[in-house]
């Protein structure tokens, strides 16, 4: 699909669906509702991940009225989400497995047409050689692979995606079947190794130093596409809300009587890694990190997950 047809395609979509995509909001690129094609800001890494569109920061789960528990209506106009970079696509694939029994998440997923986009290739890029293989392990409806000349190679990942392309009159696309979440060579042994090293490093000086450095501001959890802790809150109304939780806050593990099980920042930052690299591999078989590096960019004191993992790998387990 050449760039002119692509623009026509987006306009065609805008007439038929609610469109969401990355755009500038208060100077920051994040996913929001798109009115005009020109608003879409293709960014290889929007500042905030896609999470909010599937797990809103505050969401009503039900209200208690007339002696009944009533859930908000989940049926909404079909929406298309454009411009999703690969790591956010990967995170969404994982979320769809973690939240497989969550009717609120699944309703939003059913209601969404997921459109991924590749980065704009530079002269040294050669990921396209492997792209077909990666795409088999991601959940999407449409995927736009950008060529150097501004045209796109098109992939469909579902019947719904195919229908949209055919409806527009586009027949030149490749269909990909989902084969389950990403598996890397030696993936499990690699994961087990990291998990063991993290467990072996518990209580060491490494975490104490990290705890001394960390401000427990929780910014990393806000931009992480794989964080999903939540609180259930009522706050004086008859509704029950699900809100994003933050495991860096001291009350996260607090029980009645003011006892906290994650006592200090060192334990809380350890818990963050424990969740991503120990608990999630054990439960689901994948790591809770898609290597986007957003947490590195927002950390006010320069905590770097990549460097930390390198240090952890050197621990004797």
């Amino acid at each position: 699909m050449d760039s002119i047809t692509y623009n026509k395609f987006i306009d065609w979509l805008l007439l038929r669906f609610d469109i969401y995509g990355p755009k500038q909001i208060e100077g920051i690129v994040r996913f929001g509702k798109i009115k005009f094609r020109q608003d879409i800001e293709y960014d290889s890494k929007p500042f905030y991940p896609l999470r909010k569109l599937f797990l809103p920061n505050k969401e009503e789960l039900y209200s208690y009225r007339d002696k009944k528990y009533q859930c908000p209506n989940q049926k909404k106009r079909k929406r298309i989400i454009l411009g999703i970079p690969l790591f956010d696509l990967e995170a969404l694939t994982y979320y769809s497995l973690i939240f497989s029994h969550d009717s609120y998440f699944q309703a939003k997923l059913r209601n969404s047409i997921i459109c991924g986009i590749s980065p704009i290739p530079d002269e040294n890029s050669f990921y396209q050689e492997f792209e077909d293989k990666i795409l088999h392990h991601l959940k999407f409806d449409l995927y736009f692979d950008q060529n150097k000349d501004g045209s796109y190679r098109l992939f469909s990942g579902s019947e719904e995606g195919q229908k949209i392309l055919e409806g527009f009159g586009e027949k030149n696309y490749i269909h990909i079947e989902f084969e389950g979440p990403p598996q890397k060579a030696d993936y499990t042994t690699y994961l087990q190794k990291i998990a063991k090293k993290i467990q072996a490093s518990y209580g060491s000086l490494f975490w104490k130093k990290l705890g001394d450095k960390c401000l427990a501001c929780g910014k990393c959890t806000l931009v992480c596409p794989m964080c999903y802790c939540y609180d259930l809150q009522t706050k004086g109304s008859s509704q029950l809300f699900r809100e994003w939780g933050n495991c860096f806050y001291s009350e996260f593990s607090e029980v009645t009587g003011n006892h906290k099980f994650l006592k200090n920042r060192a334990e809380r930052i350890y818990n963050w890694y424990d969740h991503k690299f120990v608990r999630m591999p054990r439960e689901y078989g994948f790591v809770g990190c898609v290597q986007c590096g957003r947490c590195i960019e927002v950390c006010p004191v320069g905590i770097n997950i990549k460097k930390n993992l390198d240090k952890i790998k050197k621990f004797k387990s």
Partner: protein
Amino acid sequence: MLNPLLPQRAKITDVRLEAPQVKVLTLKPRKEMIFEAGQFLELSLPGVGEAPFAFCSSQYNSNEFQIAVQEKGVVTSALFHKNQDSYVGVRGPYGRGFPLEKLIHKNLVIIAGGIGLAPLRSVILSILHHRSIYKKVQLLYGTKCEEHRIFEKEFPSWQKQGIDVKVTLDQCQPQWKGNIGIITTLLDKYKTVKHTLAFVVGPPIMYKFVLKKLKKLKFKDDEIYLSLERRMHCGIGICQHCSLTNGKYVCKEGPIFSWSEIKNLPNVI
């Protein structure tokens, strides 16, 4: 699609003051809740919040069940002042209960501290439902003072049905002629027989002493079962509040754990 976070209505059919600041509520949910002794439910009060509670009645009655409420936190304080015939929200049951099936060939010593007797009463009543298939059962129960004891009125009946009940008080009271001292003094005084499992529920400080004593009495790690308390929101292993460092979710894989499963985890009790 089923919604695991959505509660159902349950009617409070009975309220009973059991001790100062402890009430036992009987609840009748619209649809029966089939639970095991040791499992818990999430109870919600519109406008107040949700909190986990252990079932304290027999697992063989799923149409109506009981919970013990200690007036302590936000939800428990509001619940404490609820009257008979009012309604609450309930969802569950959640987690893993006590392994009653393992008691067919083993004796049991139940060690409870304070309100910790609540989930263990569910064990006792479930055992009494089929008393003849179980072996020797002992209950060692400690509280600060006499008035804090819960379910005391039921002790004679339990005793009659072959539960050996022994109690102790932490503090000396003038009229009290029984045992004084922390719960481990009962373990010193009354010998436990061989081939015995221990089910333990109480405050964290009690676990420390009891575990030490049980190890001294040659209990194996997989013969000791205890209940862990954690903050819980979802009850289904997603929200992360109750995760144990390096391991498991208390809501899903607990709250009842064998000591062998958790003894190597940091900050576990």
